[in-house]
């Protein structure tokens, strides 16, 4: 089933076009990687896909409903987003932070229950932050904060995961662990991932579909094998890229 669909979607990123007339269809079970140079508008596209910033033109549909006609709460039960940075200006414990992921699932007049708390604790365990649930989020390192944000998203448990540079601040081990975790959540299920990545090697290893933003509003999209190639990557990064066979498919290196 198609989870996310865009029809002739055009999104501005400052003065430039992130994409023009983009037709994208993301089905359950798929993992899409978005790649492009810095400032090309990957985040702007993501904010449009999550319904936070209205696009310049075109339509976005979640489960074939135009998001413009949807209530925020209903949207939040289908799609959830991991943002590039998380804010914690007010003190809040890890458990309290993870619990806000349940927000769209709890009716306005209902209390937060034991089941909600259990979901939050198990998400903290999944990202390797168990036993710290009463610590303040502000005492965490950058990487731990990233995992806490992921835990909040896991608690939200959307069908469509929109991830803006999920591996930001993470060391190699945690990058792989995080993406393994997300892969497990979506594999053989109706859930899907759309994520912005900077490392073509992670895209090769974890994605089955790729969207490349060229910088002039044009996009290349399709199955990983067709799109993630030496020549396409050299084109978008404006730098020659070479590839070699590795244990997890191709790996790419700047020449």
């Amino acid at each position, binding site marked *: 089933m198609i989870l996310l669909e865009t029809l002739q979607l055009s999104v501005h990123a400052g003065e430039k076009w992130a994409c023009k007339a983009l037709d994208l269809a993301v089905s359950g079970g798929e993992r899409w990687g978005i790649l492009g140079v810095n400032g090309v508008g990957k985040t702007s596209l993501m*904010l449009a896909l*999550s*319904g*936070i910033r209205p696009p310049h033109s075109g339509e976005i549909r979640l489960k074939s409903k135009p998001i413009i006609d949807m*209530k*925020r*709460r*209903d*949207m*939040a*039960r289908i*799609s*959830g*987003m991991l*943002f590039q940075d*998380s*804010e*914690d*200006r*007010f*003190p*809040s*414990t890890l458990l*309290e*932070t993870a619990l*806000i*992921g349940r*927000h*769209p699932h*709890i009716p*306005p*007049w209902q209390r*937060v229950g034991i089941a909600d708390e259990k979901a939050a604790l198990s998400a903290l365990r999944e990202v390797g932050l168990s036993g710290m649930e009463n610590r303040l989020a502000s005492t965490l390192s950058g990487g731990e904060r990233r995992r806490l944000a992921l835990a909040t998203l896991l608690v*939200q448990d959307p069908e469509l995961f929109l991830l803006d540079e999920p591996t930001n601040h993470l060391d190699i081990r945690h990058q792989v662990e995080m993406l393994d975790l997300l892969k497990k959540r979506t594999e053989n299920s109706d859930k899907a991932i759309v994520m912005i990545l900077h490392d073509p090697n992670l895209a090769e290893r974890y994605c089955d579909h790729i969207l490349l933003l060229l910088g002039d509003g044009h996009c290349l999209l399709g199955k990983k094998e067709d799109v993630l190639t030496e020549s396409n990557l050299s084109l978008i990064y404006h730098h020659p890229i070479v590839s070699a066979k590795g244990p997890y498919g191709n790996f790419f290196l700047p020449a």
Partner: protein
Amino acid sequence: MNSGKKLLFILAALAAAGMLFAIASGSARIGWSDLFHASSLDRELIFHLRMPRAVNAFTTGALLALSGALMQVLLRNPLADPYVLGISGGSSVAALCAMLLGFASVGVSIGAFCGAMASMFLVFSLSGVDREVRLLLTGVVVASGWGALIAMLLSLSPESSLHGMLYWLMGSLDNDASPYPGLVTLSIGLACILPFARDLNVLARGEHLAASLGVSVKSMRVSIYVVCALLASVAVMTAGSIGFVGLIVPHGVRRLGGHDHRILLPGAALLGGALLLFADTLSRTLIAPQQLPAGVIMALFGVPFFLYLLFREP
């Protein structure tokens, strides 16, 4: 959840203690035993003088603390406070104008509310959210502008009303203001905002995240804004501009573990009420029979505290 309830219970006990302390202290001594077979004069003193004043002190403190807590979420800045950002000042100017133009108390109240709304709009639109230094500077500059306008209005007002106006401006509960407007606003304010406490928890972590978690950010912001101005302006109407309650109290409740707005909001109301009760009782007993404005006592606590918050290690 349990620890939150415990915290609320302790704060409620503190507020009750403040209330008893306020009613029991004053130049005329009333022994606890006398309360039960009090002479008519003592009864009069308690039920018509000290009680309404104590209720006013409590509601004013609660209104200011709630207003501060809401403003902090709205601006996502833990240093926001209706006094520091010039909201109380704008409210006072509009109320003074209404008084000078000869409006009755309803007109003055509406004036105070409009003044608070206008001042918030001015400060927020000039500074933009997310810019801590610019927000505080804008607030301080706007507040001093209101200060100048207040001085101008005072110099234009008739001698006979000058002392009363001045005393009101300094933040004093030494007036015969009716306790009902404050009580009603506080109850309505809490009833309106408490059902959305969970949304505030999300909103405090950023508007994008809140939107992605299903909060309708825009309408939420507008409602908080209006409730905030309403609470602050009723506090100003009751007791002039008293500073720092909105700053110290939410911070204190957070430090005591009340991060969750379902605890933080009622907790701030209780602690704010208790704090102003103690401050007001001190203000009328420290150098009795002379009275100090409660705003002065609050500023003596508030200024060093604000500086501490501003300069502490992030």
